[in-house]
């Protein structure tokens, strides 16, 4: 145990073996969905772009485990893992990527805008930084209604350099709102190393003190540590103590988007991070907690079956109806006269 964990022992609910096995299975589902999305893209079946979150699974699954069903999550275009962790089915996500009529948003969102409001997944946003002030607003609503809910904004390291990040932290801080700012620092803003365009070592955590906010740097590949950190921050927020900045350190396994082969990343760096694969870390924890290998294999097999079925379902789904492009435009339901 690190000093930090000892300090915090007792403040966060411990994650038991059974729960950890479930979290591991969820991570397997996400990993396999992302792999399927990659393959579908390469075979020309995904029309549009994809930003895969393979490698980031522990952030989404760990955070989700520590949140309540009524909490709000705002994610980025790299958000498939958050949608699935909050309860979206792989089939509806893949159908959305493939621009099918059965997609999560009837193909109107695409890969970058997975949204499932019924599951508290209040959207993925593709204008970098845009959703941070929105999470602040959602948190404000929770405070006004004294609902005990928290809002969580996930964002990349690159987003910490856009004004919206700073405005959001400031607003959340002055109003002491129940919002968690969770940075998924994967070391790159697209093709540029974050260190080359940021004057501090921890782009999110190092900025928090300027707004009087507490921050924690967390191993984003360890689902248990993420869950514990989010639970602590959420507990603080629910207790009225205001926002927290969490900087989770992680790494994407694929390139930035589409077919980016990510050649700009040093081979040793990639190797190091692949060894710290969040799925492996979870398996190690499970094994040392005495979970038999067969149980791990069974979980992975279940995940594989779910994703294989999802791929078939999405492939077989019909394209969107051209008429759907004109629906849901205005409050009165019309649109024809305005074209």
């Amino acid at each position, binding site marked *: 145990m690190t000093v930090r964990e000892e300090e915090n022992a007792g403040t966060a609910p411990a994650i038991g073996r059974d729960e950890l096995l479930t979290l591991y299975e969820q991570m397997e589902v996400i990993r396999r969905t992302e792999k399927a999305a990659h393959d579908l893209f390469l075979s020309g079946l995904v029309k*549009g772009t994809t930003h895969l979150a393979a490698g980031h699974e522990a952030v989404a699954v760990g955070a989700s485990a520590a949140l309540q069903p009524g909490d709000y999550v705002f994610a980025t275009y790299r958000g498939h893992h958050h949608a699935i962790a909050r309860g979206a089915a792989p089939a509806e996500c893949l159908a959305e990527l493939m621009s099918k009529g059965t997609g999560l948003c009837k193909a*109107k969102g695409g890969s970058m805008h997975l949204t499932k409001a019924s599951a508290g997944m209040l959207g993925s946003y593709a*204008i970098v930084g845009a959703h941070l002030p929105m999470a602040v607003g959602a948190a404000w609503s929770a405070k006004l209604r004294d609902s005990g809910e928290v809002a969580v904004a996930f964002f990349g390291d690159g987003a910490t*350099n*856009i004004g919206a990040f700073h405005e959001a932290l400031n607003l959340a801080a002055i109003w002491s709102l129940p919002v968690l700012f969770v940075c998924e620092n994967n070391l790159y803003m697209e093709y540029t190393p974050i260190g080359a365009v940021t004057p501090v070592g921890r782009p999110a955590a190092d900025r928090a003190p300027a707004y009087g906010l507490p921050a924690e740097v967390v191993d984003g590949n360890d689902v248990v540590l993420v869950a514990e950190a989010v639970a602590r921050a959420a507990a603080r927020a629910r207790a009225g103590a205001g926002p927290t900045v969490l900087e989770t350190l992680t790494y994407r396994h694929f390139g930035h988007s589409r077919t980016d082969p990510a050649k700009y990343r040093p081979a040793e760096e990639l190797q190091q991070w692949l060894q710290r694969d969040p799925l492996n870390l979870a398996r190690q924890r499970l094994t040392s907690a005495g979970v038999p290998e067969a149980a791990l294999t069974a979980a992975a097999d279940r995940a594989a079956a779910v994703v294989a079925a999802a791929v078939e379902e999405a492939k077989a789904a019909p394209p969107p109806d051209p008429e759907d*492009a004109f629906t849901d435009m205005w409050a009165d339901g019309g649109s024809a006269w305005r*074209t």
Partner: protein
Amino acid sequence: MTTLTLSRALNEGLRKALENDPKVLIMGEDVGKLGGVFRVTDGLMKDFGENRVIDTPLAESGIVGTAIGLALRGYRPVCEIQFDGFVYPAVDQIVSQLAKMRYRSLGNVALPVVIRIPCGGGIGAVEHHSESPEVLFTHTAGLRVVACADAADAFTMIQQSVSCDDPVIFFEPKRRYWDKGEVDTAAGVADALPLDRARVALEGADVTLLCYGPLVRTCLESAIAAREDGRSVEVVDLRSLSPLDTEVITASVRKTGRCVVAHEAPVYAGLGAEIAARVTEQCFYCLEAPVLRVGGFHTPYPPSRLEEHYLPDLDRILDAVDRTFGY
């Protein structure tokens, strides 16, 4: 003459601009080491150094704000906005500062900033990555707004924009980046068609088809297809959207008596509305039919599998051409 893709022609034009004036700078997300997501700035950082080709943080408002500051101190920054939809965080800087500073300073301050924006759809890239926001800028006094349509114009227009003392919003037709054309890279820009002039891209007698950016190619193809129906279509590439070259436009419409305007942006309150009003005011007694408009629908950019329904294509353009003969 050399055969270049449109994106390569822009690259060569930017290279010339960097060579000709040490005050020219290029800035934007991933424009340096990567050479930009569409490789328009490929190799420029290597050849001109990190002080002139700058990989910026992700901060559109900050990028344009910084460019304004540089321009205030005598530089000529060229900012790349990665995709059309990412310009909105910078709109405040562009509309409230860049466009107004000259006016506000009684002409004492020039802001020779170029904002390059890959625009339009057709590459399966969905909303934020397929938009045509030109009228936001044409509606703002103080900005020049131009759109290149082919490699030759890309090469000259980018150089003219960089040397222009007004701020220029420079639209690049992203689905045409890979289109090839003949470019005279040895020619200077002094003798080229000025930046604010339209160009008759194909002469015709029966109907004028006005277009710009990505739809110029579509309109040229439509004009060729229309020959089979015995229609002679004149295609005018507007090039400059603000100011508009009404001289070339009205001369063409007076000759043909019919006019169709096509753009990817929604028809509603689009540039076509302004052009239709002007043509009607200035060519009323020459018109055989009302000015018709073809464009995107008044919806957000649609799902990728539906974009071919949204983007004006040969059928929709030819249908409008036909309708001008029905009055």
